[in-house]
């Protein structure tokens, strides 16, 4: 590099600074106005140092540079935030490469926080676990939490501040904001639901600093009905917290309390803790579920009643009065009365306020308040009716009253009610700014777009479903120059010097925290005893008003998508490819109908099409709007109800999300956010391919040739008479357990095993994504799923039994069975799959040539083959996300569940160093760790005190296809349900 042409960063900055406004530069060469020197400049590895070296270097500087290079070589991926973090669980003296450290943090969804422990490998967060101390998690995680790690590294996240779509800087935004702030009366702030005390405090300060500024809240998946129902019953926006562990009888009025909503992980655990049928257990709780589209909760119920959305209020009313012409409702009312004070009636978030108020009234009458239900103040900073809040904003915008709209998170252009015509109103606002993770549909229409930090990148706080506060610790410095909510609000207040860390810390220090308690809060992941106290409100009597007449004609049920939520996770490949509970559809949304309705409306695609993963398109007509959707028939769906999920049909979200599915927000009006009537549907003569991973498997003998004993079940009454009744098989002879091969001897080793309790599995999918995250499992895309090549090591099988109108639904997670007599092992010609000394069927990826014989010969079909090069080796952003303990597989190689052998090995090495055996609970698989209901238990079956050993002695224990003499290490506990004998099925 010649001396005369040497340029440095200072020079560049100056040149960039000289440019004004829309003066573009097409390339960096052009910018430098000196292409040659620029090329040379950037070809140096350390341009700044290159300048120094060029001028001659002395020994001291040379040593400094060399030392720095060596140090930085190993630190390339380390971007730990500068502020002090407090590691959880294990605290090595130094960060040891290969030794993960766990930090407590919290993920906030829909405003509510769930505690997480984040596994960090040398500064890179790689895996999310639940925080066992956190009341909303108890160590469990759902699919959203697990998949958030992919969201963090998503290369499609917005990476730069944009002004009118052009690259700009944060300081440009601050400069542009200043004139706007001079007219506070015209400023509107639009946020999502906020429970964060520090952000709430900041917003209060903002409103004080800028009098006239109005704050609106909107979230597409909102809890307005819960709030309004509480106000109907209690007079204010109070918040019910349920204690399912204390309830003997639960009635769900359209509530998916185990599958979605604040605290659902905790609720699932508490509820299922009363259903663990073990030796000596003499009681079991009972769940009645009234719902439309089958949910995780409804399908786990002892009695599920498919009802139209419009019928719900009448049912609630009859339940409330106890007088019903319908015998089952009367029987439920009697059961509730018999369990007064130990029962719960819970209404779903989508049910109208009247149903909520009725549920509160019933609970009040039963004396459940104070025992099974605690009414607290709302954990939200300012609970509002979000629909009305948004309506006010839109009205103001249309009236030209809004001079500036600052949108903090959310995607209102995409997810606001169709009749609000948000876009038209929005474009009347002269100054629009938007903080978001992606450059999305809203970002496209704003003046200023600011990339938002992921929850693993910034400090924050939030409240759990019971009000417990968690501090959000960042695990990594913002990857893509994101800004936190508090920075944007801070910029408006003028507190630019405050980092998000300062905002959170100073808020809590002002509440009496000191360094010690702060450290403890960070370490624990929550602030002890910060749950909100009971509000002591009493419910009024049941509201007498309300239109309780069931509607006639077809009804539309509109729900958030179970895997991509309101659309915000649309660019998350793991969640896109996650088979949705019940339908097992991936990468799409559909029009869910019952078999009878499908036949009546002539839209049934028929088995032959469904077997080919194909459906028919139908046209839904609602208020003059038409929408084409593929039909999907779901047994158990109430007749006359069409269910659609919203969140799909993103146009501007990223490579994964764009153009996937159908935007059903176009059918969502403000007066019919959840249920609509007056819908017509007509079949189109067009087919549409749907990437479902399972068709409508039924256990009916006629369809499968006989009883295969896959799912075994009994009622609790039957179980009490004969605990083994569910698993008895007549067709297993005494010689069926003989093998040609000699048995393995495990007497001196661990023998790993797993028991899955199908009674308590809700099919929530948490384990599936946990497995995907832990084991670096690739996604394959819709086209490959259509070819039946999805890669999930753990799948959740869903079976129906009984009538198609209201079948019993069974969920069965199926990982590798790790058979003792594994059919896969002897057929591999190169011995790439072999039996380990601890009884696992190990898979040696680099020995595999890919004959696929093992997969063919696996009766459980749990093996997964890399038909193409599915793993993304090329995207740099995704590399740090992967679990460094697990090989990233290449094309042409078979893979399968390993019982998380990397965890097992780590625990064994750890135990060997201490010259002891691995303790029970010291190691568990990713699926078992994530499971909200602890349905999956992993451990050493050689250890007679281990939980898994004990469970295998249960009379309900059975092996899947055990008559094949595969001797599976993974076994199941039969499903035991507790139906009310008074109600005839």
């Amino acid at each position: 590099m010649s001396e005369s042409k040497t340029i440095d960063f200072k020079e560049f900055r100056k040149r960039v600074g000289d440019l004004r406004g829309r003066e573009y530069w097409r390339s960096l060469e052009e910018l430098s106005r000196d292409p040659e020197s620029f090329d040379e400049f950037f070809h140096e590895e350390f341009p700044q140092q290159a300048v120094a070296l060029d001028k001659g270097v002395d020994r001291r500087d040379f040593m400094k540079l060399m030392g720095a290079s060596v140090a930085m070589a190993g630190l390339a991926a380390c971007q730990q935030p500068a502020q002090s973090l407090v590691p959880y669980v294990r605290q090595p003296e130094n960060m040891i490469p290969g030794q993960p450290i766990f930090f407590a943090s919290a993920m906030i969804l829909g405003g509510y926080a769930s505690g997480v422990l984040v596994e960090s490998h040398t500064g890179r967060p790689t895996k999310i676990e639940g925080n066992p101390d956190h009341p909303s998690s108890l160590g469990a995680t759902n699919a959203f939490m697990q998949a958030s790690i992919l969201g963090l590294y998503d290369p499609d996240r917005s990476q730069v501040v944009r002004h009118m779509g052009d690259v700009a800087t944060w300081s440009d935004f601050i400069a542009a904001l200043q004139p706007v702030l001079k007219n506070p009366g015209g400023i509107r702030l639009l946020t999502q639901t906020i429970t964060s005390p520090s952000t709430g405090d900041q917003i209060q300060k903002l409103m004080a600093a800028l009098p006239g500024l109005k704050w609106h809240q909107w979230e597409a998946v909102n809890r307005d009905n819960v709030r309004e129902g509480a106000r109907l019953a209690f007079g204010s926006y109070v918040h019910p917290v349920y204690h399912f562990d204390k309830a003997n009888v639960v009635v769900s009025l359209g509530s998916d309390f185990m599958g979605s909503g604040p605290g659902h992980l905790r609720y699932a655990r508490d509820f299922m803790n009363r259903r663990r049928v073990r030796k000596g257990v003499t009681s079991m709780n009972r769940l009645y579920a009234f719902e439309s589209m089958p949910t995780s909760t409804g399908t786990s119920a002892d009695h599920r009643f498919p009802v139209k959305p419009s019928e719900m209020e009448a049912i609630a009313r009859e339940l409330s009065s106890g007088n019903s012409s319908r015998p089952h409702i009367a029987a439920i009312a009697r059961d509730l009365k018999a369990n007064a004070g130990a029962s719960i009636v819970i209404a779903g978030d989508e049910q109208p306020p009247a149903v909520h108020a009725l549920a509160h009234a019933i609970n009040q009458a039963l004396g459940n308040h104070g025992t099974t239900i605690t009414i607290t103040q709302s954990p939200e900073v300012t609970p509002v009716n979000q629909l009305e809040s948004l309506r006010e904003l839109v009205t103001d915008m249309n009236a030209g009253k809004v001079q500036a709209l600052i949108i903090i998170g959310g995607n209102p252009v995409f997810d606001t009610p169709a009749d609000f015509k948000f876009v038209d109103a929005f474009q009347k606002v002269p100054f629009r700014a938007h903080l978001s993770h992606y450059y999305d549909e809203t970002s496209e229409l704003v003046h200023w777009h600011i990339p938002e930090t992921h929850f693993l990148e910034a400090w924050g706080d939030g409240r759990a479903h019971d009000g417990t506060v968690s501090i959000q610790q960042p695990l990594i410095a913002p990857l893509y120059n994101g800004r936190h909510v508090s920075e944007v609000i801070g910029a408006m207040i003028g507190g630019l010097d405050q980092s998000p860390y300062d905002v959170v810390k100073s808020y809590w220090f002002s509440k009496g925290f000191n360094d010690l308690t702060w450290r403890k809060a960070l370490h624990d992941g929550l602030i002890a005893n910060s749950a909100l106290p009971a509000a002591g409100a009493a419910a009024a009597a049941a509201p007498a008003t309300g239109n309780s007449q069931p509607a006639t004609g077809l009804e539309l049920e509109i729900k958030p998508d179970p895997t991509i939520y309101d659309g915000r996770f649309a660019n998350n490949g793991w969640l896109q490819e996650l088979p949705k509970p019940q339908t097992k559809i991936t990468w799409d949304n559909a029009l869910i109908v019952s078999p009878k309705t499908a036949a009546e409306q002539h839209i049934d695609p028929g088995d032959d099409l469904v077997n080919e993963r194909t459906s028919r398109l139908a046209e839904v007509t609602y208020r003059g709007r038409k929408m084409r959707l593929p039909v999907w028939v779901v047994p158990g769906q109430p007749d006359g109800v069409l269910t659609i999920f919203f969140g799909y049909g993103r146009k501007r979200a990223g490579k994964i999300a764009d153009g996937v599915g159908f935007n059903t927000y176009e059918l969502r009006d403000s007066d019919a956010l959840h249920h609509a009537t007056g819908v017509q549907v007509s079949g189109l003569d067009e087919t549409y391919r749907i990437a479902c991973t399972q068709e409508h498997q039924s256990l009916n003998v006629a369809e499968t040739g006989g009883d295969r004993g896959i799912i075994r079940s009994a009622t609790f009454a039957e179980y009490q008479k004969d605990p083994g009744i569910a698993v008895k098989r007549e067709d297993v002879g005494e010689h069926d357990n003989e093998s040609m091969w000699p048995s393995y001897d495990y007497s001196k080793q661990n023998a790993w095993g797993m028991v899955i309790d199908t009674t308590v599995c809700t099919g929530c999918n948490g384990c599936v994504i946990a497995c995907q995250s832990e084991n670096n499992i690739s996604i394959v895309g819709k086209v490959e799923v259509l070819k039946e090549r999805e890669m999930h090591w753990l799948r959740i099988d869903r079976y129906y039994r009984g009538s198609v109108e209201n079948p019993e639904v069974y969920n069965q997670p199926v990982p590798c069975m790790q058979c003792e007599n594994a059919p896969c092992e002897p057929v591999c010609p190169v011995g790439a799959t072999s039996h380990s000394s601890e009884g696992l069927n190990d898979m040696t990826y680099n020995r595999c040539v890919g004959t696929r014989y093992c997969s063919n010969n696996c009766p459980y079909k749990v093996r997964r083959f890399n038909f193409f090069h599915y793993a993304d080796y090329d995207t740099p952003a995704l590399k740090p996300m992967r679990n460094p303990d697990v090989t990233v597989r290449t094309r042409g190689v078979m893979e399968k569940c390993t019982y998380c052998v990397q965890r097992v090995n780590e625990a064994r090495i750890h135990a060997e160093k201490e010259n002891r055996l691995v303790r029970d609970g010291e190691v568990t698989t990713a699926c078992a760790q994530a499971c909200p209901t602890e349905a999956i238990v992993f451990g050493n079956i050689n250890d007679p005190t281990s939980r898994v050993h004990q469970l295998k002695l249960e009379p309900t224990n059975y092996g899947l296809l055990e008559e094949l003499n595969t001797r599976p290490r993974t076994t199941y506990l039969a499903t035991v349900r507790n139906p009310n004998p008074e109600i005839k099925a």
Partner: protein
Amino acid sequence: MAQKDLTPVHEIRPTTELKIPERFIPVPTLEPGHSFASVTDHISTIVLRKKTPIGWFVGFGFSCILMGILGVTIFRLIFVGVGIWGINHPVGWGFDIINFVWWIGIGHAGTLISAILLLLRQEWRTSINRFAEAMTLFAVAAAGLYPALHTGRPWYDYWLFPYPNTMSLWPQFRSPLMWDVFAVSTYATVSALFWYVGLIPDLATLRDRATNHAAKMIYGMGALGWRGSAKHWHRYEHAYLLLAGLSTPLVLSVHTIVSFDFAVGVIPGWHATFFPPYFVAGAVFAGFAMVLTLAIPARKFFHLEDFITMKHLENMGKVMMATGLIVFYSYVIEAFFAYYSGNVYERYMWLNRATGPYRHMYYALIVCNGLAPNLMWFKRFRTSPAMLLVTAMFANVGMWLERFVIIPTSLHRDFLPSSWGMYHGTIWDWGMYIGSMGLFLFLLFLFLRFLPMISIFEIRTMLPEAQAAHGEEH
């Protein structure tokens, strides 16, 4: 009986007063009127003539086009992955293994005709053995493509061979695929040797009759210095008999072991003890069908009616029917076992074949392999080249369908309904299939043009002169 057949008919006729009805006249294995010279002339001219018939160029060009398809498919397969095929997660084997078994089955006729019929002194085999052996080799070559290329990482295929290596790793000897490697490679080696040893005297004839210097050289090298001395003939006869003895068990073993790929598996529809005889019978059936498919047009095109007579065709038709009926019996037994075992999976397996989404395949299979061979009960059909060709085509298609019914139809619905799926071949599956036919035809056309398709010296032994000489020796 066989000996009697060989009595030249033209010698009987003039000495007999009675007018023998034509249907009682045995059909000869060699039409009358040939001498040593005419046999040699007729057959070697096909190879040595300067002017290649235009029809050959058309056929060879066509096979080259198919080879091109094969090349493109293999290129894409290796660079992109086996995902270009229709295989998926219940159905891990599709066209690849169907076609492998199909080709290997076809490759059975050659050895059977050459070795077993030689040992059984079925001398009618003489006119067709060379042709059938060549077909066997080419079929095995086409079959060999599939196991080599069906793996996810074909560049590591050599791991299937037991070779000493620094990793001290051996293949897994419990795996039927491992057995396949030995069975198929042994079969290919022995068949090639057998074919080549049988060619040596004829190569020498061609060497001697060739006028082109290059041809002389090449045939000369192939002839390994054959001079036709008594010692040569003595050695030759021994070697040929020994190789026939070696090949005989292979006829049974190869397809037995191929059937183990399935029978050893646990999948309903695979896991059955009758698979070895069922597969061997199927292979012979397929092999004879393919010999007929190729011999009937070749006979016509090269005017070989004198050498491949109606007797050959009729005998092959009989073998086809016999083995076809064994195959059909296996289908019946399979259905009976499914019912009689009381095993839910086995029952469903058969129900799914007969009533599931691939039922059309199953019914087509029954028509092709169960019903069509019964035409051969009738002499009228047995002696009609057109009808024989039709029946053979049924068998060719039927045997492909049989492998489809066994492989994807068993896999696509096995034990757990949750993992059930569907299987469809893609354009690349078809590309590979058609391409492998191209390879087969390519080799066959080269063979027809450059090597004697009928064994010259063996035909000569069937001439009355030879018979007479033979008789004197004893």
